[in-house]
């Protein structure tokens, strides 16, 4: 989804992106972070009951989502996919109304917990809470794309903890047998709530498991937005060419507790948490863009103002929206006949 062409530095050109692309990608990373931070403030202030966060995942999410065609390809996201959903077309208001569970929250009309995003308009499959179920939906979407010859690619993302579910095995096997246009993204932040990856995985990298399905599996640094983009671009090209699925494992960091109901210092040391901060994709990406001369002080100032305004607008907007009417709670169990 390249944007307007401009003066291109070698940084983006190495992966086929313009400077304008890079700035826009940075904007999504920073916007997702700002919205996320606002959600925590609102939670601690008692305005919203629950937050589940994507902090630390945003670089991988934006880099990977950038390789997909918005409004054409499909993504079955998970509960940390704020940046993914923003990149694929949801607005800050869409994200914030989900936190307030308002009547007009486009994800669920206030029916689901925050973090369970979804939008048919943007080809983002509705998120549920049982983990990894969405992989099979993305595989089915890819199957339909192949049968209908629509040229679409389907992606799903989840954490490394979720990747242990049986649905993952069943789906990867089927997708590989039929060479479906499917990309499996694992955002490995090292923890499944409190349990470290070493107790979740018998191998160092989830990507090793790709060999069991005869598909490529790559590991990328989740703080390296452009490496994530390049890996996804290759996987999408392979999928669109009919060569089958790929697995991308992005090593990310979880900068917050599992959710607003979790205190991660109970199972992670202060030293570990401090050390993880260097893997924060936001300052890493920013430094890289500043050093390359892509992100000038003027651009940064403009972006900061835009993002601040967007977060304020989304918060004020969501605060002002009405709750759902209980009289509507029985609707949409089944299709409603046109009377």
């Amino acid at each position: 989804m390249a944007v307007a062409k401009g003066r291109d530095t070698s940084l983006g050109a190495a992966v086929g992106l313009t400077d304008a692309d890079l700035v826009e990608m940075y904007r999504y990373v920073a916007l997702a972070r700002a919205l996320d931070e606002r959600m925590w403030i609102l939670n601690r202030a008692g305005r919203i009951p629950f937050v589940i966060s994507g902090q630390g995942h945003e670089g991988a999410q934006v880099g990977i989502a950038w390789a997909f065609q918005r409004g054409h390809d499909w993504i079955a996201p998970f509960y940390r996919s704020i940046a993914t959903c923003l990149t694929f077309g949801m607005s800050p208001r869409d994200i914030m109304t989900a936190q307030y569970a308002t009547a007009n929250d486009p994800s669920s009309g206030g029916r689901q917990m925050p973090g369970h995003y979804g939008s048919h308009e943007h080809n983002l499959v509705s998120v549920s809470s049982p983990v990894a179920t969405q992989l099979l939906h993305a595989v089915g979407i890819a199957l339909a794309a192949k049968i209908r010859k629509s040229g679409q690619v389907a992606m799903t993302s989840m954490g490394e903890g979720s990747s242990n579910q049986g649905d993952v095995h069943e789906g990867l096997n089927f997708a590989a047998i039929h060479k479906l246009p499917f990309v499996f993204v694992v955002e490995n932040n090292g923890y499944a709530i409190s349990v470290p990856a070493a107790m979740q995985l018998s191998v160092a990298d989830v990507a090793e498991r790709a060999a069991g399905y005869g598909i490529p599996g790559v590991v990328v640094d989740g703080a390296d937005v452009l490496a994530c983009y390049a890996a996804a671009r290759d996987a999408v090209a392979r999928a669109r060419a009919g060569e089958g699925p790929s697995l991308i494992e992005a090593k990310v960091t979880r900068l917050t507790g599992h959710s607003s109901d979790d205190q991660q210092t109970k199972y992670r040391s202060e030293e570990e948490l401090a050390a993880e901060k260097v893997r924060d994709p936001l300052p890493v990406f920013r430094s890289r863009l500043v050093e390359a001369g892509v992100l000038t002080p003027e651009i940064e100032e403009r972006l900061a103002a835009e993002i601040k305004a967007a977060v304020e607008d989304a918060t004020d907007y969501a605060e002002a929206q009405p709750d759902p009417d209980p009289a509507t709670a029985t609707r949409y169990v089944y299709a409603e006949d046109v009377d």
Partner: protein
Amino acid sequence: MPARTFIEAIRDTLIDEMRRDESIIVLGEDVGKKGGVFLATDGLWAEFGDDRVIDTPLTESMIVGASIGAAVNGLRPVAEIQFADFIFPAFNQLVSEAARMRYRSNNGYSVPMVVRAPYGGGVHGALYHSQSVEAFFTHVPGLKVVVPSTPYDARGLLRASIRDDDPVLFFEHKKMYRSVRGDVPDTDYVVPLGKAAVTHPGSQMTVIAYGLMAHYALEAADTVAEEDISVEVIDLRTLRPLDKETVLESVRKTGKCLIVYEDNRFGGYGAEVAAIVAEEAFDYLDGPVTRIAGPDVPGVPYNHVLEDWFMVSPEKIATGIRTLAAY
């Protein structure tokens, strides 16, 4: 009007619907060249090819989960679970995902999908090829559950299920596949979901059944008719949504209600019907709402003596009718 077996009616309907609508695909274990272990999909692969008739690996959760995704992206999958007994690996996909997709997305998404599965005992299938699993799914808002008992209804209800915009579980009693025959018009008729049928009019008692039990109930009604007991038999055809009106209208007329189901008695589908009748027709009742159902053991045992002990039969139903009639 040609006579068809139960399974021929299902196969013919799948073929007709797939010819009518190219968004319909069939997927499941052995559904391709073999045509299914019961041959319900025999001939489909030859006509519609690899893209639309897909032999899957032994992965029930994937069969249902991928069907959900395919439905989201414009297809109408008709999935086959080889035996209803093997549907449980897909329970999460059916209950957490298919059933809730429309509700949780506030009508943003729908899952037009049919999951067919042979169910039921009396075929020497033992614990894992005999189960009646409908109660697990009739409990779940968002799912529709259909259990036809005649070739005519199988055709009309399967059509309605495939054309429905919500997930439908379509349970076919395997003992009826070849033993039940009936007239099936070649026309494009539909039997609407959620409509029961009064299959035997009567005045002294209402007997409510579905699937194979709908046949056994008719046999029992004929038996007791010779003893001057007049029984009205209702074949529910669709379990969810339940046709409450037809049930209550009949019970209010007869004053007595016997519910027959093959599944374990405790917490079975008939328990819900009994509760509805007790709540909404209490003033009309002239005897206890009664159930004839399978015994509460964890499965149908294999040995034929044990299997006969388990299965509800026309004789057991007739005995239940006599007892309730004498109340």
